């Protein structure tokens, strides 16, 4: 037992390091698997004849991530809400969201529990749909996320003085 202690310890440490590395790689891989779309991309994707570009259509049916403000336009259990580029409340810093090209209809997965804050950016992941669809309850929308999950988006991007700020994010 005593003879085994040193090699066993090493083996344990190696195992732990391998597990941590695997976890790190898995996290990275998981992060890379889900593409992130911005409101700028969504807005640019709409064409004059009420269609969306093939590029944005290529995300249809796939899991995507969009960051934005929750606008509780549906029931208070947040089973449906709008995701907006700007907050619906606050000090009116930005231009008005101008309609369906500036908002995403989010149909949340059941049993969602988040602490709602109108001034907080949320990270929403769900199955993406693009193109005009008329919903009986909520009217026409261009972009939708189905079976969506919501998290608070933490860790805003920090950039140094002189660097160009990240666009569209």
């Amino acid at each position, binding site marked *: 037992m005593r003879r085994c202690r040193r090699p066993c310890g090493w083996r344990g440490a190696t195992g732990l390091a391998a597990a941590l590395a695997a976890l790190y790689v898995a996290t990275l891989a998981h992060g890379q698997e889900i593409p992130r779309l911005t409101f700028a991309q969504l807005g640019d994707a709409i064409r004059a004849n009420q269609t969306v570009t093939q590029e944005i259509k290529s995300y249809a049916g796939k899991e995507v991530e969009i960051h934005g403000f929750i606008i509780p336009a549906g029931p208070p259990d947040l089973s449906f809400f*709008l995701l907006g580029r700007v907050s619906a409340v606050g000090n009116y810093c930005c231009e008005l969201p101008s309609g369906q090209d500036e908002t995403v209809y989010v149909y949340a997965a059941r049993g969602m529990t988040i602490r709602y804050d109108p001034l907080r950016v949320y990270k929403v992941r769900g199955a993406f749909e693009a193109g005009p669809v008329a919903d009986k309850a909520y009217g026409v929308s261009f972009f939708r996320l189905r079976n969506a999950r919501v998290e608070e988006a933490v860790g805003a991007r920090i950039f140094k003085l002189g660097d160009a700020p990240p666009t569209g994010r």
Partner: protein
Amino acid sequence: MTVLTVAWRYLQGRRVASALTVLSIALGVSLVIATTLLTGGLRAGFIEGTTDYGLVVGAKSSPTQLVLNVVFRMDTPTPNISMDIYRDLKDDPLVEVAVPVAMGDAFQGFRYVATTNTYFEAFPWRRRTVTVAAGRLFREDSAAQPAYEAVLGAEAARRTGLHVGDRFYEGEEMAAYPLTVVGVLSATASADDRAIFFSLPSFWEMNEVSRGMDVKPLTAVLVRPKRISDLPALHRRLNVSAETQAVFPSAVLLSVFNVLGIVEEGLAVILAIVAIVVLLYLFVSMYSATFERRREIATMRALGARRATILSIVLLESAALAVVGGVAGIVGGHGAAYVGAGLLAARGGPQTHPFAVGTLQPLTLVAVVVLGALAGLLPALLAYRTEVAENLAPLS
């Protein structure tokens, strides 16, 4: 004699102590069940009873007061807005439906709500359909000839005892303007059940101030846009205006839920402390019982009872107390929730379901039995380790 019989005899042997232990467990469990049912029910009641209209537009004031008053008939009305705001919204190309609402006094505590028949209309986006259980809706009368016809919500009709054809008023000021009941609505599980509806012209004529006004007052306008994606634009435009505020009802409720969440967290801490106190009581009760029974246990051991048998008797006794206390607590908790729900409804709060059964009850019972058995584990071990020779020695 089986282990179960011995445990039962032991419990019978100290009836008062066992009853008090069961009572303390039952009270603790009742508190957990009643609190969970009422806080969860309050949240569910608000969700169930909320409006399907996307915006509530009213005067600049508290958004919470506006929504609680207009949608849930709680709190006092916000200041008035002019009828012109309603007309502008009705004609707005972004708006599908706009419904004017004026909140008035009350009859026996049931609020007067003046509106138009559009309020009761069925739309594809409405979760609830308002139907007339008896009579009809009030006539859309004119300001020159107000009809003073009232439609009662289901609970308002039941509690006031008013029927179709009855006339009523409250306060001597209103004696000149009695309302006639022309209809009773079916129950909707919302604040509409506790309201008395009539037309806006009748409301304006009943009100001494509005009678002389050229532009009539309203409390709020309920707005449904053609496309939900237009809500943010409408919301912003109406809030930037110096006269009005627009509120998402769900946003107000979510803020209320956030506060409720803090209260729930505080309650959870209190309930955890109560659970610890109850467990300690059970532990002390079982410990002292086992301590007093050392000679009996030693005798049983001398007569051939195995240590494991002694251990299981004490554990069984403790678990039995927990089962009886847990079941009594669940029943008592529902009773307490029923009383609480009644008090809440009497104060105009949302409807809760005090007899709702789900995973809460079995989970609580399992937790109580497991914790009860754990509380009896140390006394059981004490019994398990009882030495025969030492405890059968003469008492002198």
